[in-house]
């Protein structure tokens, strides 16, 4: 065995997978997992742990995997993470845990994410119950939003004995895990539903179809429903558009709309009522993970797909693995290209997109090289569908209906980094609602910290 080489993992053939919505990566077998786990050097000062936003004891769970003690491995992970099957799949491990793995200096880092995923899948397949909680303490906490931040915060508080209710606006809990990330990266029925069931097993109640800010307000949660603290994990779901001419033409939609129709409403499945429209030639504007998800979804619905991005390939904010998968599936990357107008036919349907070529200038304050238009380089891309994937910002529904809740100029809720405490006493916030669109695992980290802070706040309140 070459210690510096990763144990290969089975994936669906690109030609086959582009015709279905089944998961691309098939995961390790028990033998493969043990073999990969054996590569871990079990460092004395493990740098991988410092890079994990929920500080999973990585060397410890990996040693158990190596020994074939998968249930023990699961219990180690469960101490830190409520959603390992999700995180093992969607975390950008290359810039987190795996980014600091010592083996990565000379060779390939240990496949920590894939091992975490293996343990979580094994636990599910073997019906292992990890739901241990402390005695109920009689205190009620309301969690707004059932995405990664809310689920983590709720799970942690339930373990500590709190009576937790999650309020979710949509008809299905999971947030971006159900409406955003497609089936082929994160299976809904097996993985997401199961992890949510695990949170429910801890005693967490989930009330769907409740929009805080409309159906009920934060003030009412305190005054009328008797909650002692509130955690806001409502995410950043408000899509951005470019503001270019023709953007309201028929056939232009946000990535959120496209993905919601497909993932949450299951438009791709026979028998579901929600329609989805994908033309013959689709342009996805943007270069993040959401753009990759939208592009790969459109390809599976039968379209020729172009990713249109204003910087160069090196600056693509999406995970390398996703870009790689997208390319394997035939997605065409048109980089250093920026749309300036959507062209429509006489019936108002998209018939093309006027673009301009870009070049990269000096690095800006964030260190990224600024894209600059090349004069007189306009051209027309022949497309019939445009999906805008330019990022999202927090929905102001909660902040605008909650007295004394401070927000910043990006409409993000202002919260302390270490505790999630907001300007309102007893109200905590975390995840994309605070940071703007980020990652699943960062949201989970924020949910974890807030749970700890809420516990401290309410414990002190009882004693005083």
């Amino acid at each position, binding site marked *: 065995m070459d210690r510096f080489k990763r144990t290969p993992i089975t994936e669906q053939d690109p030609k086959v997978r582009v015709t279905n919505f089944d998961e691309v990566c098939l995961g390790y077998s028990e033998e493969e997992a043990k073999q990969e786990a054996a590569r871990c050097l079990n460092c004395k000062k493990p740098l991988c742990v410092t890079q994990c936003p929920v500080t999973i004891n990585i060397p410890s769970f990996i040693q158990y995997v190596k020994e074939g003690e998968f249930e023990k491995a699961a219990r180690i992970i469960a101490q830190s993470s409520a959603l390992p099957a999700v995180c093992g799949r969607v975390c950008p491990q290359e810039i987190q845990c795996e980014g600091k793995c010592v083996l990565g200096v000379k060779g390939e880092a240990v496949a920590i994410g894939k091992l975490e995923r293996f343990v979580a899948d094994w636990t599910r397949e073997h019906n292992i119950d990890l739901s241990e909680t402390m005695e109920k303490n009689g205190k009620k906490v309301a969690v707004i939003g059932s995405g990664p931040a809310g689920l983590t915060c709720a799970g942690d508080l339930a373990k500590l004995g709190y009576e937790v209710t999650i309020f979710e606006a949509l008809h299905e809990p999971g947030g971006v895990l159900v409406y955003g990330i497609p089936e082929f990266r994160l299976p809904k029925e097996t993985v997401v539903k199961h992890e949510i069931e695990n949170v429910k097993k801890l005693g967490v109640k989930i009330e769907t179809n409740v*929009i805080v800010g409309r159906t009920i307000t934060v003030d009412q949660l305190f005054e009328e429903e008797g909650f002692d603290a509130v955690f806001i994990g409502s995410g950043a779901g408000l899509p951005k558009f470019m503001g270019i001419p023709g953007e309201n033409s028929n056939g232009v939609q946000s990535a959120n709309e496209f993905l919601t129709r497909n993932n949450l409403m299951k438009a791709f499945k026979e028998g579901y009522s929600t329609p989805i429209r994908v033309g013959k030639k689709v342009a996805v504007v943007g270069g993040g993970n959401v753009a990759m998800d939208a592009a790969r979804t459109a390809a599976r619905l039968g379209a020729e797909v172009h990713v249109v991005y204003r910087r160069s390939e090196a600056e693509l904010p999406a995970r390398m693995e996703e870009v790689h998968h997208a390319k394997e599936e035939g997605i065409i990357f048109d980089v250093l290209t920026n749309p300036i107008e959507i062209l429509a036919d006489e019936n108002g349907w998209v018939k093309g997109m006027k673009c301009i070529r870009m070049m990269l200038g000096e690095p800006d304050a964030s260190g990224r090289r600024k894209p600059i238009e090349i004069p007189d380089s306009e051209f027309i891309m022949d497309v019939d569908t445009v999906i805008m994937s330019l990022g999202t910002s927090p929905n102001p529904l909660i902040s605008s209906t909650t007295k004394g809740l401070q927000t910043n100029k990006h409409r993000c809720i202002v919260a302390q980094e270490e505790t999630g405490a907001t300007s309102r006493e007893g109200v905590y916030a975390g995840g994309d609602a605070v940071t703007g669109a980020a990652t699943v695992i960062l949201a989970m980290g924020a949910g974890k910290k807030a749970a700890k802070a809420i516990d401290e706040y309410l414990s002190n309140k009882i004693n005083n």
Partner: protein
Amino acid sequence: MYKIVKKRLLAPQIYLMDVLAPRVARSANPGQFLIVKIDEKGERIPLTICDYDRERGTVTIVFQTLGSSTQQMAKLEEGDAFADFVGPLGQPSEMVHEDIEELKVKRILFVAGGVGTAPVYPQVKWLHEKGIAADVIIGTKTKETLIMEEEMKAVAGNLYIATDDGSYGYKGLVTNLLKDLVEEKDKRYDLVVAIGPMIMMKFVAALTKDLGIPTIVSLNPIMVDGTGMCGACRVTVGNEVKFACVDGPEFDGHLVNFDEAMRRQAMYKTEEGRKILKAEEGDTHHRKGCGCHENNEGGAR
């Protein structure tokens, strides 16, 4: 699950349902809407709130069978339940926030078109409860399709009915009747609120612009989530892009780009037609690859 406690056929193809949804009933205000989903496989259908009873915890919806989802809804009976029923959504009518004394001196006319009569009702009723009698025009195809006449009579000032075929009340379109009231009958209005098909609202707004009467319309674009996270419902109002589900659904009728809104509303038309055909005649119309259905599909409301 949200139980249907009452179902009534108001007119051919127009149904009223009272649905048990205490949280929605408690927070609902005139002008807002909600979203229903029949079952696991159903789509999310936006409907304007037509009435609510905070004590009984019920919310009234009125819908017309237009596509396959509303046809499926019409088959539900008392005792059946919707899988999902979420709201209230959107902004309440502006009048809810206005000073009552100022409202009292305002001469308000509501123009309701077809099934749009139902969402006009809670607004007129709300005003009536505050001691304000607003005039109402109901426009409908024929006498048979007229709904909620008695209910409206009980809360409105003057109630005028217009039928396309003249089978009841005034013969002609609501716009003709409105013009007649203002120009011939010397009626004066400070505000017009129009709710109905997009095309009706467009022509009412065009007329009231000429007449110089401020006008509010309630838009009904295609929606998916209804909470501002997708932008399917975006409309252009005074050259600004707005999301009808969070910024509306009520807007200044003189600023709305109706042509764009109507074009976007028809985006999924053919898809919807195909679904109805399939439901009625089985899978005989699903020929993949002919390409003739590519460009047009059907929305929710």
